[in-house]
Every structure is written in C-alpha cells, then in structure tokens.
C-alpha cells in the first residue's frame, strides 16, 4: 500500500498532471458558479474529449472537475441566493442573508475553507476505506455483485423521493437500453432493428448528454424567468470567514463525517445530504437562534459536508462499480473510456495506484479550487451574473460536436436527440431522470454477474447467505421507497378531500380559492421538499 501511495504521488506531481488538474478545476469552478449548469452537464460534455487520453491525465481532468463544482457553487448561493448546483442549496439559508447584511466576503471565505477541509476529509476516508473494504470486496462472488447492482438501482429509486415506483421503472428502462447490441457470449443481436449503428450498443456519453445536458439547456430557452439579477458585492471579510471556519473545526469534522458516510450510500445525492448536514449542524451547535438568518456556522457545516460527499461517493463507485448518482455514473463511464474498469478488481495490488491517484487528485483539486476561489473572489463574483441563456446556443453547438465524437456517426446525433426528448418529457412530467442513467450504467455489469451466476450455480445462488442478506436489504429499500410514496399520496388525498369539502359548501368563489390554496399547499410542500432545486438557477442536475 505504501509503495502504491508513493507511486500515486509520483504520478500526480508531474507538471502535466497538475496542469490537467488545474484545467479540470477551472472548468469545475466555472460550471459551479454558473447557475443552471453544473458538474454533471460539464462532465458529460467532457467525456467524448477524454477518449484516448493517458488514463492518469484523464483522471486528473475528470476528478479535478468533479470535486470542485461544489466549491464554485458557493458564489451564486451566497451572492444571489441561487444554488449553482443542487448540492449547494442549503448554503443559501445563511450565506445569502449574510451577503444582504454586507458579509458576503465572510460567508465566501468560510464556505471555501470549509469546502476544502470537507474535500480533504472525503479523500482521507476514501484512502482509509481501502484496507477495510478490500477483504469484503474480494469475498464477493458474482451473485453478491449482481445483488449489489440491484440494490444500487433500488436505492437510486429512493432518491426519486415520492416517485419510487417511477424511479424503478425508469431505472429498468435504463437497464433495458444497456442490452441493445451484441449480446455477451453469444452472437445474438438484441433490439438493433438491423441497424449497423446499434450493433455495438449505445454509448454512455450520448445517454449522459441526452439525459442531462439537453433538458437543462432547453429549459434555459423555455423559461420566462431571468436567472441573473444584481449580485451582492464582496467587500472584504474573506479572512474573517476563514477564521470562523478555523474556530469551528468540530463543526467542519461533523459535517464532513455525515457527508462522507451518506455519500457512501448509492442514491442519496448531494442535494439530500446537503440538507441533512444543515439540519444536523443546526441541531448540534449552541445558540442556534440565528440559523437561517445569517449564521456563519450554517454555511460552514453544509459546505464541509457537501465537498466530503465526493470522497464517500467514490467508495462504491470505484470498489463495486456502483455509482451513487449522476456525477459518479459519468465518472464511472469516463474511467471505462480511459481503459480502467472500476469494480472489485480495483483493490487488487496492481490497481491500487489508480485508486490512490484518485484520492490524491481529490485532495490536490480541492486545495487548488479553494486557493483559486479565495484569490479570485472579486472577479469571479462578477461572473456569476453571466446570462446563461446567452451561453446556451453555444453549448448546444458544442454538445452536437461532442456527441459526434462518440462513434463519428450521424447515428450519434439521432441518439442524442432521442434521449434529449425522452429526458425532457420525463422532467416536465415530474418523472425522475437519474435512474435512467444509473440503470444504463449498471445494466452491463448486472447482466455479466447474472449470466455468470446462472451458468455457475444455476438457481442455487439465490440461497447463498450473502445473497439472502442483500435481498433483505433490497426489500427493505424498496419498502422504504414505497412508504415514502404513500406519504406523498396521502398529501394528495388530503388535498383532494379539502377541495371536495370546499365544493360541498357550495360557495363558488371559496371553492376556487380553496382549489388554489390546496394546490398551493401541495406545491409548497413539494417546494419545501425540494427547496434545493426549486429555483430557476438550480436545475436539479444533480442527484450526484
């Protein structure tokens, strides 16, 4: 392990790799502070261009971008009250009031330093998890790994709060799409409709771009609302904020620990974790009566938790090949494009330098991101007012070009548009999109593990103790998701009953108002559940 760590250090600390990390960090920061975009869109755009790169340079670029979008998103959250990414929403609760009180610099200083500590904490946990997870990962056979794939998918369904069944359905569709093309170990062509283009299946890049980039950009065109408005100015106080973070190290550690632990569970995205950390912070600090009104501790805890999440999410992604969310699903695809196969083989001695390079890059990128953010607070804060709607046409052109790089075929563009349409419709009809990508990513390994299990054990694999335990977890997670859905349905039922009662009283005007208020209650319930994504700036890109 020490040898591998030394090898990773020599890999990272070369001029070329540091330059790639810097490039990723800069892109991540820009994507983070432009509301409406985000790491997922950026990473899906980046994928076609990393093909053929040296694997370690590719890791530097991808991880560099992946882990600092959460740092950059503090700018719009604090200055404009708009989350740059879905994971940055709770920073608004105290960061924005602070900015309105003329303490924007203090809030940003605190947020950046807390983010850096959180990111480093996540990296350290990822590093420490290797010797612990290694025997566990290596003890798993194909049946257990197949069950882990199913659990990963079911947990992602929970992510689709209140729409668990729809989440499962969309996830299954993703798995089905992954089966298109030549079947493994046979000469069967599945669902290709005699199209030569489909023989090799559909590329992850196209699915990711179609599901995330296209709907987000379409919404920028479609929506009436102006995203950008006058941002608060940064008038010093950055060092004061950094001192605040240093004074609240226990809060940083607590937020980071919660963020990393929850990040390890597939399906619990940054957007959820962010609010959980905020809640935990508010409940554990003393004299919390200023929380929500501009308490710097309300910025520190969630920011630390948000950046530590990445380290946690990397654990199932790298060691089991199970992505926890959209960001890690794209990361997984990126690693595969670079010739690295995430999964149990990653903990083999010959692959340890790869994991440790990811850990090192995570730490270096967080330090770089924070240093850049702190030193460029004033110019970057002006860039947050960039009208995204005007960037959208340019991005569409880049997406078309990026999609074409997948197979250098016109079919790529058709597939891109098809997935863009599907995802846009799903989003507008309030169906979850993330399970589609997770299902697609998990489909291939799930089929491989399923086939191996069936050919080696027949149906006996179903009685293995590990499989039985995982089945119980699977049933539990689906049960939990259904219970959540019932809760949402109850709200709907109560709303409908309320409207019916109002109608019974016969007052037409009152009825109309009641309908409005019922709907408003439902809507506001929905909004409070998803406050982190309810603004125009936050396009929910990221249950990452």
């Amino acid at each position: 392990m020490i040898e591998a760590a030394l090898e990773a250090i020599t890999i990272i600390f070369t001029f070329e790799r540091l330059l790639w990390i810097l490039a990723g960090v800069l892109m991540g920061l820009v994507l983070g502070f432009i509301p409406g975009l985000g790491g997922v869109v950026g990473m899906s755009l980046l994928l076609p261009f990393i093909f053929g790169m040296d694997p370690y340079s590719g890791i530097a670029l991808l991880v560099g971008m992946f882990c600092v979008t959460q740092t950059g998103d503090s700018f719009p959250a604090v200055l404009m009250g708009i989350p740059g990414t879905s994971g940055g929403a709770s920073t608004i609760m105290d960061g924005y009031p602070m900015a309105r009180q003329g303490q924007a610099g203090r809030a940003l200083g605190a947020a950046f330093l807390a983010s850096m500590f959180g990111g480093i904490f996540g990296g350290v946990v990822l590093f420490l998890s290797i010797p612990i997870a290694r025997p566990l990962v290596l003890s798993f056979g194909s049946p257990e790994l197949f069950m882990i794939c199913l659990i990963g998918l079911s947990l992602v369904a929970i992510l689709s709060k209140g729409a668990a069944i729809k989440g499962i359905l969309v996830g299954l569709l993703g798995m089905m799409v992954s089966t298109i093309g030549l079947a493994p170990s046979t000469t069967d062509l599945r669902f290709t409709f005699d199209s030569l283009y489909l023989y090799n299946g559909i590329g992850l890049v196209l699915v990711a771009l179609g599901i995330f980039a296209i709907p987000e950009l379409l919404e920028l065109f479609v929506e009436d609302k102006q995203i950008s408005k006058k941002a608060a100015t940064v008038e010093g106080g950055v060092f004061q904020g950094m001192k605040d973070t240093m004074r609240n190290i226990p809060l940083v550690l607590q937020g980071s620990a919660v963020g990393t632990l929850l990040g390890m569970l597939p399906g619990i995205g940054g957007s959820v974790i962010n609010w959980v950390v905020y809640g935990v912070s508010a409940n554990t600090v003393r004299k919390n009566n200023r929380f929500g009104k501009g308490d710097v501790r309300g910025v520190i805890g969630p920011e630390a938790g948000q950046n530590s999440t990445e380290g946690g999410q990397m654990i199932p992604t790298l060691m089991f090949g199970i992505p926890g969310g959209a960001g890690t699903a794209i990361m997984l695809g990126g690693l595969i494009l670079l010739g690295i196969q995430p999964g149990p083989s990653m903990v083999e001695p010959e692959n340890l330098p790869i994991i440790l390079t990811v850990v090192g890059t995570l730490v270096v990128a967080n330090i770089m991101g924070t240093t850049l953010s702190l030193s460029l607070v004033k110019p970057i804060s002006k860039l947050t007012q960039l009208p995204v709607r005007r960037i959208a046409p340019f991005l569409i052109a880049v997406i078309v070009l990026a999609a074409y790089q997948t197979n250098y075929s016109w079919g790529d563009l058709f597939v891109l548009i098809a997935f863009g349409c599907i995802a846009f419709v799903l989003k507008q009809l309030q169906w979850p999109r993330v399970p589609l990508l997770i299902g697609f990513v998990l489909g291939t390994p799930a089929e491989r593990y399923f086939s191996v299990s069936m050919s080696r054990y027949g149906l006996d694999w179903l009685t293995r103790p590990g499989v039985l335990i995982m089945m119980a977890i699977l049933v539990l997670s689906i049960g939990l998701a259904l219970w959540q859905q019932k809760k949402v349905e109850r709200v709907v039922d109560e709303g409908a009953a309320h409207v019916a009662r109002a109608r019974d009283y016969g007052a037409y005007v009152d009825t109309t108002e009641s309908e409005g208020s019922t709907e408003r209650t439902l809507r506001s319930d929905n909004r409070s559940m998803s406050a982190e994504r309810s603004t125009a700036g936050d396009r929910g890109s990221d249950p990452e």
Partner: protein
Amino acid sequence: MSNPASEEVTAGQVDTVTSESKRLRGLRVLVPSVFFVAALTAVILAVPLSDIGRRFPLFIALAMMLVSVVVIFQELKVMRKKGEYSAAAYDYQMLTVDSFTALHRGFLWILLIIAFISVVWLLGFFIAAGIWISLSLRFGAGVKWKWAVLSALIGIFIIWLLVSLLSLPMPSNLLELIM
C-alpha cells in the same frame, strides 16, 4: 425552511402553473403505457433469441411490464381523485412556466436543434453553428443582431480552436462533397 430565491416566484405564477398542468393529466397515463408497450415489444423481440441472449432482457422487460401496470393504476387512481400530483419526482420542474407550455416550447427548440443538425449535414459544422448561434441569440435570447453575429463569430473561433487542438473529426457535409 423557505429558499430565498424561490420567493421570487409569486403565488399567482404558481397558480397559473398548477391550473394549466391539468392539461397534462392524459399524458400522465400515456407515459407508463408507453413504458408498458416498450417492455412488451422487448419481450416479443427477445423470445426468438438464444437462452443466454434473452435471459437478462426478458427478466428486465417482465419487471418493467409489472411496474408500469402498477404506475398506470396509481395514475388512474390519482386522476379519479382529481389530484394534481401523483408522485412528483425529486428532480424538480420550472415554476414560472407550466409543464404543458414547457413541453410545447421545448419541442419547438428540439425541432430547431434538428434543423441545426440538418444544416450541419448540408453546409458543414462551422457554417451551421454560426447560423444557429446568431439566430438563437437573436430570437431566443433577444440579443441585438450585431452582438449576436459577433458572439457567433467568437463562439465559432473557440470551437475551431478546440477542434484544431484536439484534432477532432468533423461530420462530413454535402457542400464538402460537391466542392
């Protein structure tokens, strides 16, 4: 806990959004039905395959059929109760434009993107991108003509730089073939 930014959306806007979304009720049943039909088609197409080839797709397709039937019943139940929301996904939609309008406008933009791709096929990527960026900036974002054209030129230069540096293959076009 209210999001300060969400306060910008007035109750009036929300009401408009909710009342208009009633038009989408039919679509709510249509979507799971499409899933069901897709799964059924997959079953039909998978049956003639070899055992190994069809095992996994069949397993997924049957699960999809089962789940989509559950969703259809759920949606029908909600519609009968005149509820607006069956089970809203966590992935949230816009608040200032109702879903119906968003779908309508969104598909218009998708058609425009398809038109852009067609022009790429006809005239090549750079010319098409120039036309696309300037027109969508002018009519989509309301930018003045001269700024729209200038932005398009700058945008194309950046893309050209990217293409040259990474030696990216470009889609072939009809103009190139003729010339």
